[in-house]
C-alpha cells in the first residue's frame, strides 16, 4: 500500500536520476546484442567461457540491476513513504560507478585484462555498496512496513550477498584461501543474484504493480505475508548446505534436494501472477502485461528445465542445460519483466512530474500529455514483437548455435535500439513539456 504520510514528489529525486538508469539499460542490451552478432556460436559453447560470462554480466548488471536500482531510488518515497538520503548524489554516483564498473568487468572477461578486472571490482563494489547503504537507510526508516517493503529489504540484502560473492570470486581470493571448488560458489553467487536480488524484488514489486497497473485482484494474503521471507530463509539454508557440501561434510545431493523445496515458491508466484492476469477486470490489450506473461512462463519453463536437469544426468552433463537455464531466467524472466515495466514507469513518472509542476504553477495553458502519449502503443508493440523474436532465437541458439546465434544477436540488438528510441521519445516529450511549463513560470514572474 502506498504510504499516506507526506507523500509528495518533493521527496522523490529529480526525474533525471531514474531516467539516466533507464536509458543506460538498453545501451548495455545493445552491446550484448552486438557481442552476440559478432561472436555468435562461441558464446554458446559453455557457461564458463569468459565471453559468455561477459555477456551474462552485460545483461544482469547493465540491464537488470541498472533498471532495478534506478526504479528503487525513485519508487521508495512513493511505495514506502521513505526517501533515499542524499538521493541526487547517491543516484549520480551509483549510476556512474555501476555503469563504468559493469563495462570494465565485461571487457575484463573478454580481454582477460587484470587491470580492468581490478578496477571493475573496485568500482562495482563501491557503487553497489553505496546503493545498498542508501537504500538500506531508507528501508529501515519506513514506518509502515508492508509486504513489499519486507521483500525489498530482503532483496537488497541478497544484492549485497551477490556483490560480496562476486568480489570474492572475481578477485581470486577464494582460491588463495584454499577453496578448491569454485564452481559451487559461482552457483551460490548466481542463486543470490537471480533468485534473491531479482526474484525477491520482483515478487515484492508485483504485490503493488500487478493489481495497480494491470487492474487485477490482489495477491492472496498468505502469499504476500510469507513467500518472500520463506524464500529468503530457504536461500540462506541452501547456502549453508552448499558450503557444507564444498567441505565434504554432507553429500552434494543434499543442497539439490533442498532446492527442490525452494523452487515451488517461485513457481507458485508465477502461477498466481498468471492467474491474476486472467482475472483482469478490464480486458484491454496491454504491452506490459504481455511482457510479464512471457516472464512468468519463462520462470515456469526454467523451473521445469532445472527439475529435468537434476533428475537426468544426461541433461545435467550437457553444456546446453546451463545455457538454457541462463537464457530462460535472465533473458526470458528478467529482461522481459524489466522491459515491460519500463513502458509503465517512464510514462507514469513523466506524466506525474509534469502534472505536479502544472498544478504548482496553476498553468492550464500548457497541455500535459496523458500517459499513453509518451510512448505509443504501436511503437511499444513493434518492440515487443522484435523482443519476442529475439528470445525465441536465443533459445534456438542454445541448441543450434551455428544456425541461430548471430541472428539472435542481430534481433536482440534491434530490440534494444527500438526500446532505446521509445524511451528517448518519451523523455524528449517530458523535457519539451517541462520546458514549456518553465517558460510559463518565467513569463508569469516578469
Amino acid at each position, binding site marked *: 500500500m502506498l504510504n499516506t504520510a507526506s*507523500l509528495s514528489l518533493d521527496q522523490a529525486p529529480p526525474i533525471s536520476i531514474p531516467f539516466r538508469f533507464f536509458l543506460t539499460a538498453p545501451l548495455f542490451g545493445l552491446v550484448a546484442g552486438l557481442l552476440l552478432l559478432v561472436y555468435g556460436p562461441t558464446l554458446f559453447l559453455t557457461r564458463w567461457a569468459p565471453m559468455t560470462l561477459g555477456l551474462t554480466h552485460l545483461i544482469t548488471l547493465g540491464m537488470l540491476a541498472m533498471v532495478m536500482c534506478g526504479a528503487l531510488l525513485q519508487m521508495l518515497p512513493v511505495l514506502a513513504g521513505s526517501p533515499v538520503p542524499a538521493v541526487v548524489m547517491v543516484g549520480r554516483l551509483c549510476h556512474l560507478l555501476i555503469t563504468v564498473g559493469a563495462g570494465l568487468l565485461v571487457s575484463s572477461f573478454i580481454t582477460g585484462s587484470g587491470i580492468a578486472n581490478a578496477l571493475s571490482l573496485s568500482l562495482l563494489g563501491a557503487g553497489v555498496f553505496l546503493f545498498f547503504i542508501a537504500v538500506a537507510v531508507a528501508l529501515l526508516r519506513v514506518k509502515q512496513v508492508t509486504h513489499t517493503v519486507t521483500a525489498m529489504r530482503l532483496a537488497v540484502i541478497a544484492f549485497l550477498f551477490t556483490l560480496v560473492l562476486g568480489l570474492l570470486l572475481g578477485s581470486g581470493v577464494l582460491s588463495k584461501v584454499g577453496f578448491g571448488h569454485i564452481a559451487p560458489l559461482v552457483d551460490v553467487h548466481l542463486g543470490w543474484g537471480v533468485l534473491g536480488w531479482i526474484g525477491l524484488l520482483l515478487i515484492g514489486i508485483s504485490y503493488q504493480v500487478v493489481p495497480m497497473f494491470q487492474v487485477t485482484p490482489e495477491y492472496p494474503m498468505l502469499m504476500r505475508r510469507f513467500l518472500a521471507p520463506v524464500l529468503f530463509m530457504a536461500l540462506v539454508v541452501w547456502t549453508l548446505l552448499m558450503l557444507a557440501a564444498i567441505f565434504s561434510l554432507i553429500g552434494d545431493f543434499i543442497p539439490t534436494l533442498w532446492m527442490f523445496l525452494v523452487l515451488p515458491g517461485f513457481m507458485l508466484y508465477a502461477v498466481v501472477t498468471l492467474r491474476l492476469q486472467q482475472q483482469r*477486470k478490464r480486458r484491454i490489450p496491454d504491452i506490459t502485461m504481455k511482457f510479464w506473461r512471457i516472464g512468468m512462463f519463462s520462470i515456469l519453463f526454467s523451473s521445469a528445465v532445472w527439475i529435468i536437469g537434476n533428475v537426468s544426468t544426461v541433461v545435467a552433463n550437457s553444456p546446453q542445460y546451463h545455457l538454457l537455464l541462463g537464457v530462460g531466467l535472465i533473458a526470458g524472466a528478467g529482461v522481459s519483466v524489466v522491459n515491460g515495466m519500463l513502458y509503465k514507469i517512464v510514462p507514469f513518472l513523466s506524466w506525474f512530474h509534469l502534472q505536479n509542476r502544472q498544478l504548482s504553477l496553476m498553468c492550464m495553458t500548457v497541455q500535459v500529455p496523458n*500517459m499513453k502519449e509518451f510512448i505509443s502503443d504501436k511503437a511499444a508493440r513493434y518492440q515487443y514483437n522484435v523482443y519476442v523474436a529475439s528470445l525465441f532465437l536465443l533459445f534456438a541458439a542454445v541448441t543450434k548455435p551455428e544456425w541461430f546465434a548471430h541472428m539472435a544477436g542481430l534481433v536482440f540488438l534491434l530490440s534494444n535500439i527500438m526500446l532505446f528510441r521509445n524511451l528517448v521519445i518519451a523523455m524528449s516529450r517530458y523535457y519539451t513539456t517541462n520546458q514549456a511549463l518553465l517558460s510559463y513560470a518565467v513569463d508569469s514572474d516578469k
Partner: protein
Amino acid sequence: MEKRLDVSMLEPCEPLERTLEAVQQLSSGDFLHVMHRREPHLLYPLLEKSGFVWHCVEERSDQYAIYIWRESDQVAGKEATSHFSK
C-alpha cells in the same frame, strides 16, 4: 450536489487524470464522489495544489470512496460531510 465518478476499473494514470478533470468542472455547491479500488495517495498532493480538500472512506479493502470539494466552497463541504458521515 453530489457528482459521481467511477474510476475503479481504470489503470493508472486514468483515475488521476479523470478525477483532476472532473474536479475542475465542479460548480458552486457541488462535490465529487469518486469510487476507486485503491486509495489514491498520489492524487492528494495534486488536489491540495489545486485548492481542493478531500476525505477518503475505506468501504472495503478494494473499495474506496473519495469526497472532493473546493476549499472555498463551504456549502459543498457541508453537503459532502453530511454524505460521508451517514
